[in-house]
């Protein structure tokens, strides 16, 4: 609740009230003042009418198609609302009631439609946002399915190369390489497994993905680097978030031919 204002303060607010910019918390005071004070009342009457005319400055031509469309819809509703002017007779009364009710229903329906339209636009906006989210999710799912399909093909292909390592197998096919590790023990608290790759001709390993053992028992790790360019692959236990260079002895180092 705002502090009570003196007459000078209230007079200052009459113009703002006429324009419609007084905060709700002060409207009651100002309205009461206008009703009680003749000077304030006169100023309000004059400035309110003037403020109302501000809207005229926004008048502008409407696209003819839009104007025609709006008019067509409006006039159809209005004409449906008009009761025929024929004299009533006893036998026609019920029929007229039916017409009137139908016309009234048409107007109500039109009004409800317009009101609902506002809500529908908001709903449409929300729906579009949901569609965008679902589309993103669908794209991710499609990529995941494509990756799964490619992995399945690579892992089962007869031309894949398989290297037995501690806890499982390294599978290489073309440019793709995977770690297929079973019974991998959980790393110590705060630690993860990290893969390392050694590029052909390189003298130091480069960090690759980090991972944790799958609860299903088989941990499948696709390595993002191009297998065609790799000389070796290794796995070590590293702090969460991974390391830039191995900090522990590797669980295995596997040369790739």
């Amino acid at each position, binding site marked *: 609740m705002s502090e009570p204002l003196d007459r000078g303060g209230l007079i200052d607010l009459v113009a703002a009230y006429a324009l419609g910019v007084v905060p709700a918390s002060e409207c009651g005071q100002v309205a009461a003042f206008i009703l009680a004070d003749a000077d304030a009342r006169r100023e309000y009457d004059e400035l309110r009418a003037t403020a109302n005319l501000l809207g005229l400055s926004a*008048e502008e031509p409407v696209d003819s198609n*839009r104007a025609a469309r709006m008019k067509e819809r409006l006039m159809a509703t209005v004409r449906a609302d008009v009761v025929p002017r024929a004299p009533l007779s006893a036998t026609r009364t019920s029929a007229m009631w039916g017409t009137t009710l139908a016309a009234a229903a048409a107007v109500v329906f039109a*009004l409800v439609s317009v009101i609902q339209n506002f809500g529908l636009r908001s709903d449409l906006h929300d729906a579009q946002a949901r569609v965008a989210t679902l589309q993103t999710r669908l794209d991710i799912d499609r990529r995941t399915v494509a990756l799964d399909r490619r992995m399945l093909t690579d892992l089962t292909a007869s031309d894949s190369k398989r290297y037995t390592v501690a806890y499982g197998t390294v599978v290489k096919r073309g440019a793709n390489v995977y770690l297929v590790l079973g019974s991998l023990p959980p790393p110590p608290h705060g630690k993860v497994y990290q893969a390392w790759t050694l590029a052909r001709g390189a003298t130091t390993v480069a960090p690759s993905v980090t991972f944790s053992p799958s609860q299903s028992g088989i941990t499948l790790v696709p390595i993002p680097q191009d297998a065609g360019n790799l000389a070796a692959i290794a796995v070590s236990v590293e702090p969460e978030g991974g390391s830039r260079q191995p900090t522990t002895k590797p669980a295995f180092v596997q040369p790739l031919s």
Partner: protein
Amino acid sequence: MEDGARLMERVRARDVDAFERLYDTYHRLVFGIALRIAADAALAEDVTQSIFLKLWTSPEAFREGNFAGWLSRVTRNRTLDVVRSRANRSTTEIPADVPADASTDATVFANIDAQRVRGALSALSEEQRTPIEMGFFAGITHEEIAQRTGVPLGTIKTRIRTGLRRLREALSEAISR
């Protein structure tokens, strides 16, 4: 040309032709205000439809005075309501409940048109015109106007008051010419 107040009398008598003329005369005003406030043509079209349907179903809502001014205020308030509801914003301004005595203005401003209003507005200083236009078309409080413009609240109140008085004088001069 038959003015809006006369046309509304005929609309009260369920005169479809009068309503059609009312639409032809004032749809640019209603659509223009809604578009200026909402900056969304589809929403402005919805507001225009709802305003004219309301004129048809509740013509008694207009009592007397300058019809274009009354229609401007109704359109402004309706559009702000819709914009706020879409933005889930609470209403920060309560439209004035005190009914204005419009008998004088019905005579003085009966034939005012958009061009004259634009001319009178452009005659105001930028300092006076800005808070007045922000208040009417953005539907914000004088405190918010002060915050957005960086001008003290007391100065904003004074500029609104002197600006509206100057606007009234300029409109009266334009009509008397």
